[in-house]
């Protein structure tokens, strides 16, 4: 009898300590893609690190209440990337060389600021709050341009203006849930204006047979596909419906457009294509990875099944998967 009780209690305690699939996924991400010094490694891009990766790492750490990893990631980001003459982050770091491009990447700055705000709130850390405020101020003052009365996030401080009045932008840099949080904590009306301009661009810039957004856009007297980048809906643009879903801003008609594309791909190829050419409507010749699929599960409002760890050895795929999972959890909670 006593033995049975002991065994029962042992089993109970063992069950209660079993990590959830999401936590396992996070642990696997840390093991595969975060170095001991706090550098997020993009193994799909020659092992470099970038501000976007640091931003994703920080977001995951705060979601999973992993203060220690957050602090390590933040320290590395400050030491190695926040070395410009402002509070923005150099976007690219190459091992054994250091920073190889001091230009910032606006999505990285936005993601890091958002993570810091969440960390400040969750762990009552005023230094994170101050750090976020500094980044927000420099984003406001350095990265925003006006275009036809709309506020536009430039991809970086330098470049992306091919001629006066001709801007190249990436709509996936509008991290909508982050902008909502910025509007809540920072009194500037700019953030709501950015949300409005992002929605305007999303609703207006539709291309191809399935009226999808593009990875890169060109703004001059009208909105067109960027002439300098591939005219595709792909791994960049998939984050647009991801962020919109996260912020509960994805309208049902647009949801249907994305799902129609997925259906067409399935019907024609037997798999979900991660890329569509918006000029000739052709698909990619390979299937989407686990992260892309998870994002589609989010769009389709289906429960996200996290992939086996062994199947998800790509930094970006794993990041998309965790992003989609967290987006689903947080958008349900709102």
């Amino acid at each position, binding site marked *: 009898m006593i033995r049975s009780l002991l065994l029962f209690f042992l089993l109970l305690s063992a069950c209660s300590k079993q990590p959830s699939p999401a936590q396992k996924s996070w642990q696997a991400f840390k093991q595969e893609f975060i170095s001991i010094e706090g550098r997020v490694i993009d193994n799909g891009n020659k092992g470099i690190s970038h501000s976007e990766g640091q931003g994703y790492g920080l977001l995951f750490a705060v979601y999973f209440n992993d203060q220690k990893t957050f602090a390590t990631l933040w320290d590395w980001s400050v030491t190695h990337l926040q070395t410009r*003459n*402002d*509070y923005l982050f150099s976007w690219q770091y190459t091992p054994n060389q250091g920073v190889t491009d001091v230009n910032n990447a606006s999505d990285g700055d936005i993601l890091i600021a958002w993570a810091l705000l969440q960390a400040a709130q969750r762990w009552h850390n005023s230094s994170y709050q*101050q750090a976020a*405020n*500094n980044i927000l*101020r420099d984003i*406001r*003052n*350095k990265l925003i341009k006006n275009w036809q009365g709309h506020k536009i996030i430039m991809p970086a401080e330098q470049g992306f203006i091919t001629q006066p009045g001709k801007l190249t932008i990436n709509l996936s840099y509008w991290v909508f849930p982050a902008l909502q949080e910025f509007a809540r904590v920072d009194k500037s009306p700019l953030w709501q204006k950015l949300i409005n301009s992002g929605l305007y661009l999303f609703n207006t810039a539709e291309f191809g047979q399935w009226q999808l957004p593009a990875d890169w856009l060109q703004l001059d007297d009208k909105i067109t596909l960027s002439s300098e980048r591939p005219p595709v809906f792909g791994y960049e643009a998939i984050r647009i419906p991801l962020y919109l879903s996260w912020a509960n801003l994805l309208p049902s008609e647009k949801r249907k457009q994305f799902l129609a594309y997925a259906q067409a791909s399935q019907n024609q190829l037997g798999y979900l294509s991660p890329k569509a050419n918006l000029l000739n409507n052709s698909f990619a010749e390979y299937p989407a990875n686990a992260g892309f699929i998870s994002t589609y599960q989010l769009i389709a409002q289906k429960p996200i099944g996290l992939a086996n760890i062994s199947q998800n050895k790509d930094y970006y795929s794993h990041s998309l998967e965790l992003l989609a999972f967290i987006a689903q959890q947080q958008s349900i909670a709102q």
Partner: protein
Amino acid sequence: MQWGSLVSQAIALRLDYKTFKLNLQQATAITKHKDQILSNQDPLRFLQQSKLNSDAVLIGTSAELADLLAPELKHKIKGAYLGVYPAQKNNAQIIIISGTTPDEVTLAAKTFAYARNAFPDTQDMFIKTLNIQPYPISTRSNIIVPGLTYQFKDLGFTTRTIHPKSKYVSLTFNMPSDLYHEPKSNVTIKLALNYGAAFRSDSVLNIRVNDIFEKAINLDNEDGDSFQAYTINIPSSTFEPGFNKISFEAVMPPVVSGDCTYMQDKNSLLTLFENSTILFPELDHYTQLPDLSLLKRTGFPYLSATNGSGLGIVLRDQNHATLLGSWQLIAKLSQINRAPLPEAKLSFKSINDRHLFIIGARNSLYDDDLAHAPIQLSENITFPYSAGHAIQEKHQSIYQSLEQLLFPESKSSNNALLQPLHTQINFNASLGSQALMVSYPSETGINKKLNTLITYDNPAVFYATMYRLVQPELWNKLNNNIAIWKDDAKSLETLSAGKTFYIGETTLRNKLAYHFSLHRNYWLLIILGLLLFVAFLSHQALKRYKLKYHSNTSEYDS
């Protein structure tokens, strides 16, 4: 940037109050005909000096300076190092500030700033440690503390005898910049003085404050006199923030005078003793900003912490002009401070929790920089051109109306309040060769700091305008909160516009009095309410007393 700041301050403090020009050059090594100069004895023989026309400071780590220094000099630098060597022309000197690491270079630069007395009589100095005496954050020895009595000798005055040839003697001291002078607060001076005999009865000791006549003491005792504590009171508001001078001038004409008459003045003597005292009243530190005249006189509020910990200088661009301009400014501030500002922060990044100077070309400014400024400087300029003054309309409150109704003879205070008027003009134009300085609150919340923005359009002339600004002719004319000037001694114009705020703490009594003066109606209602409440309580108490002790007595019984 920090090194340049320390070096500029060091030079400024050595020159006391004089201004100087700065030039920034990249030091270059001689590469041609190097073999011909190898045998030369000059330790700086590899340094390109053809463009050097004045004293120079060469600063950097030993690794950074490696190509510029001869081997025998390089090998000396094993730690924080100061050296002085003759330049090749113009009798100029080259000061070398170096070390093996950036921290050692900073130590050497700080030593250069703090070592105010003579350096050792040698070319090299190897610094081990620098222990800076912790300055009291908000006081210096030469600034008086309200509420204290000082003997004249505490302020550097020695017993002096005034005679006809000496004209006057002076007592000098510095007042804090941020005192709130209440209407009846006085500075009390008790003079210990003796004066001689046989003057004319109209002899006087004239007392001036900052060259303005304040009081006279009639020296009317023919037999002379002696006082231990002759008391005079001067309103504290007479004194300026910063430097003040009280002058004592004895006018002692002889009794005997006239044409062809022998007149002797050896009796015209007055001695003022150093144990005379001056008492400064207890006053709140509470003052209105922005005010460039406070910056001019005392560097307030930027120098409210004497180690510079309240001062930040943000550079919005990396033009040489902006960098030199910021060093010129901090050099001037260190002269006003009479000490280096080691904790002052200079940065290209935004700085929090400090009073700031923001310096940069107009096209590099952040929108946030001007969020609370009375001027806008984005693509177009919005500027408040002065349109004279008007008397502020005074609305009579219920209190004042009541007072006049009940006491028609009484006259409530009706001081005229002048309000500046502005015409806001929005236009598209360059600043040309002008520079613009504007001071304004940093935010609308309770933790306001002061921002002072200095901007320009033409980098080629900006340094010259900053150099002109710190010259006494322009600097001493700073006033209001907006200044525009160019490289011309007569060009400075100032005006006042935008929001003001108070900085400092005042007593609860003064806060309540101030609040009462702004919201008299509310306070009147509160007082009436309290009176009614007390009346009600009294009535209830009386009622109970009557019930208890006189329950059978009617109220109307006589």
